[in-house]
């Protein structure tokens, strides 16, 4: 579904953020992209979405990410931003949800049906006509996910989906992610969430892949994680008081 | 400086709508031609920022009072005049729609007074020429540019606020709202706005210098990457333009006003016997077509006379001033109270039914 072949990228000449990155994600796989601040996680997302372009080839369903194919590619990829305020730019949740489907040429009736189906799937019917600036942070995150699902993307990309959420809403988001059938690529520092939602983990360090394997294996490897400025997930660390 | 609906006659309000609408149309056309799609979200976020930022109280050192910043100059320095103008329109519309600051009908005038001058006059006649001038060049590239930003902000805010205040006076006087003589009204408004403009200018300068020092590429015309200052317009030309603007604002029109306090209205609109053209000093032989159009316009205006001063021919008796008018008004008030009582009654009934 998603394939990176020897991709490199630098914002400034000589200071590369991504260096010769290659990996592929199969249909239906759930992959966690982890790494310290500045390891290049967000840049990987941006490269994949065609928001920035670097060297090498990125394929989505065999189609290269380039200027000509952008709308075709973006239609397949739903990206949930870290800051929902930047994503929800319309006055109400409903208007935000119809934004993408209508832009991608879906009819008004089909869009309505889709919106209602997604809201029901996530149990958010009550939010439909609420104003974006008047819903809580947790509701906003769920609504942001709903706006992306209304696009019916083939893959869902998420940037820190559980940041700044209370335990209840965090769990709600995790359960929602687990219920999604799409291919998933999630970046986060919340390793417990990654463990709960992903079956594979790619560990980035200074723009290169430091490890790539089953989540269960990488997230248990204390030495590996600590070598890259991370810690074991709390649920695996046990209660070790020092 | 927000005008209220009540301060404008329909004819004046409509004229200002046409003027502002034209400027908006030209701006949209220009933006579309440049095809800078990324502009729209940037405009929205910056406009929202300026909206919120105008609520900040800045303490003025040495006084107990506080000042606010000048939106037009800030927006056009960041976004360019066209995008800045549209952003200002939206800010003024939101202030008018949600905060009753201004009015639906006065929006055209408010856009002109606050957005047009701040964005177009402020940018093309002050900001851009000054950014390209060699003022303060002796201070070194960076310090010189800083000084130019401060000077342009202060001069820009003062000049555009003066123009705005003058327009308020002009529009109100033309609407026949106030009995205050034109000259006296101006003498009241201009000095106040001189002080406000100075403070607004300094605050705007502070914000813009901060931006310049952190991210100079965000400022229009202030990018110093090539090192050299490209002097498109000389200092002399800049001063000449500024002087001309000042002369027109301060001198010409106020002279006209003081000589003949009621004359301005007469001069611009003509009396009912003569056409516009004659009063505007246009030669009828040379402007035959226009003057016929003007005659027609005057005739139409005479018939419709939507200016309160001329009002409707048949209702121009000092209507509503007789005793019967007062009694009638009292009866209207009684009817209004009845409507309220009825409304309350039906609402209660519905609430009871809902239970």
């Amino acid at each position, binding site marked *: 579904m998603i394939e990176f072949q020897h991709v490199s990228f630098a914002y400034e000449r000589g200071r590369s953020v991504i260096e010769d990155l290659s990996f592929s994600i199969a249909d239906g796989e759930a992959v966690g992209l982890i790494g310290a601040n500045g390891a290049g996680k967000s840049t990987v997302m941006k490269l994949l979405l065609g928001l920035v372009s670097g060297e090498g080839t990125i394929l989505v369903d065999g189609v290269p990410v380039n200027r000509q194919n952008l709308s075709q590619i973006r239609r397949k990829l739903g990206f949930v931003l870290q800051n929902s305020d930047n994503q929800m730019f319309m*006055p109400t949740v409903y208007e935000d949800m119809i934004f993408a489907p209508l832009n991608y040429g879906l009819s008004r009736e089909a869009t309505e049906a889709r919106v209602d189906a997604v809201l029901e799937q996530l149990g958010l019917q009550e939010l439909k006509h609420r104003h974006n600036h008047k819903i809580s942070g947790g509701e906003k995150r769920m609504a942001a996910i709903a706006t992306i699902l209304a696009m019916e993307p083939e893959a869902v990309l998420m940037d820190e989906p559980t940041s700044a959420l209370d335990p209840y809403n965090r769990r709600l988001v995790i359960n929602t992610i687990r219920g999604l059938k799409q291919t998933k690529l999630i970046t986060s520092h919340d390793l417990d969430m990654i463990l709960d939602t992903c079956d594979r983990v790619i560990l980035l360090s200074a723009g290169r892949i430091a490890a790539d394997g089953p989540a269960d294996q990488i997230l248990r490897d204390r030495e590996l994680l600590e070598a890259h400025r991370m810690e074991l997930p709390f649920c695996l660390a046990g209660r070790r008081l020092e | 400086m927000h005008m209220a609906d009540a301060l404008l006659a329909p004819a004046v309000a409509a004229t200002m709508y046409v003027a502002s609408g034209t400027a908006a149309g030209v701006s949209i056309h220009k933006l579309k031609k440049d095809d800078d799609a990324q502009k729209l979200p940037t405009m929205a976020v910056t406009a929202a920022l300026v909206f919120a930022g105008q609520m900040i109280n800045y*303490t003025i050192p040495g006084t107990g009072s506080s000042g606010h910043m000048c939106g037009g100059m800030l927006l056009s320095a960041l976004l360019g005049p066209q995008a800045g103008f549209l952003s200002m329109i939206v800010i003024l519309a939101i202030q008018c729609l949600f905060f*009753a600051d201004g009015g639906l*009908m006065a929006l055209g005038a408010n856009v002109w007074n606050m957005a047009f001058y701040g964005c177009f006059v402020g940018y093309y006649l002050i900001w851009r020429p000054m950014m390209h001038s060699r003022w303060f060049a002796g201070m070194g590239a960076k310090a010189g540019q800083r000084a130019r930003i401060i000077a342009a902000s202060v001069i820009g805010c003062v000049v555009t606020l003066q123009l705005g205040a003058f327009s308020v006076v002009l529009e109100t006087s033309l609407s026949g709202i106030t009995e205050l003589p034109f000259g006296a009204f101006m003498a009241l408004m201009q000095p106040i706005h001189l002080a406000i403009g100075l403070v607004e200018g300094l605050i705007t300068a502070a914000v813009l210098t901060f931006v310049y020092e952190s991210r100079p590429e965000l400022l229009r015309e202030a990018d110093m990457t090539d090192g050299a200052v490209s002097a498109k317009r000389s200092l002399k030309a800049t001063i000449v333009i500024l002087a001309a603007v000042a002369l027109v604002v301060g001198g010409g029109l106020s002279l006209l006003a003081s000589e003949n306090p009621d004359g301005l209205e007469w001069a611009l609109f003509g009396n009912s016997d003569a056409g516009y053209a004659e009063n505007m000093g246009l030669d009828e032989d040379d402007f035959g077509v226009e003057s016929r159009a003007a005659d027609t316009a005057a005739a139409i205006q005479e018939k419709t006379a939507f200016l309160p001063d001329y009002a409707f021919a048949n209702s121009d008796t000092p209507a509503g001033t007789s005793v019967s008018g007062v009694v009638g008004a009292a009866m209207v008030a009684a009817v209004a109270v009845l409507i309220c009582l009825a409304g309350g009654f039906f609402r209660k009934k519905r609430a009871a039914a809902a239970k």
Partner: protein
Amino acid sequence: MNKMEKALRELSEMDELAAHASPVHGLCPTAKLLTAIAYILTVVSFNKYDLSGLSVMLLYPVLLFQVSGIPVRTCFYKLRIVLPLVMAVGLFNPIFDRAPMLTLGTVVVSGGVVSMLSLMLKGLLCLMVSFLLMATTPIDALCAALRRLHVPGMLVTLLLLTYRYVGVMTEELAVMTDAYHLRAPGQKGIHISAWGSFLGQLLLRSMDRAQELYSSMLLRGYHEHFHYVDFKPFTFSDGLYTVGCTAAFLLLRFVNVAQALGGLIVR
């Protein structure tokens, strides 16, 4: 509560009012907008001495307030912004225009007083009707109406987006203001040393935010075109409302009903 929080409260109050249901809320926004403009035009066109003719115009907003169930209190709160300038301009009228106009018993009312009162009444009436329009119409519906009236799409989209971010930015600035005052007790406003950086910091962050916002629009297929939500079509009854109200306004403008009513009793 600081100024920005108050503004946020005002905004959300308008949203809440607009979300109610009533016959007025149910009208097509285009009809409401046109009628409001017709009303304001009629009101401001009244002769400055025609106080009694103007007073009849009060009935329309009163009726609307009652039918829509919008509380008048909120509207009067907003008067604090409109009235000062209107007052400042109107207050000079009694000084300059001393011609006696009306004698009520022993009290002589001058033309200036009448024109001042009518100016203030005009201010009040226009405010009430604009307020009623916004209190019964959500912003998105209004934008759809503007679009239908051929206001350029770019401007309408900008209005919609800005409205959305006014909430976000005001909230952020409210928090920043609180944070400032927590560390600067006793200061009324922002000290000169922070004049530039206080707003400047937020400005720089906003530029990045705009970039991200633009990305999120692009990723969801945006290309120079916005689809507007248009819940309510312009029906026959909407047309009837617009035409009927406008005709009534014009009638009240040309026929002084108050005078006629009073004449029935006094003469």
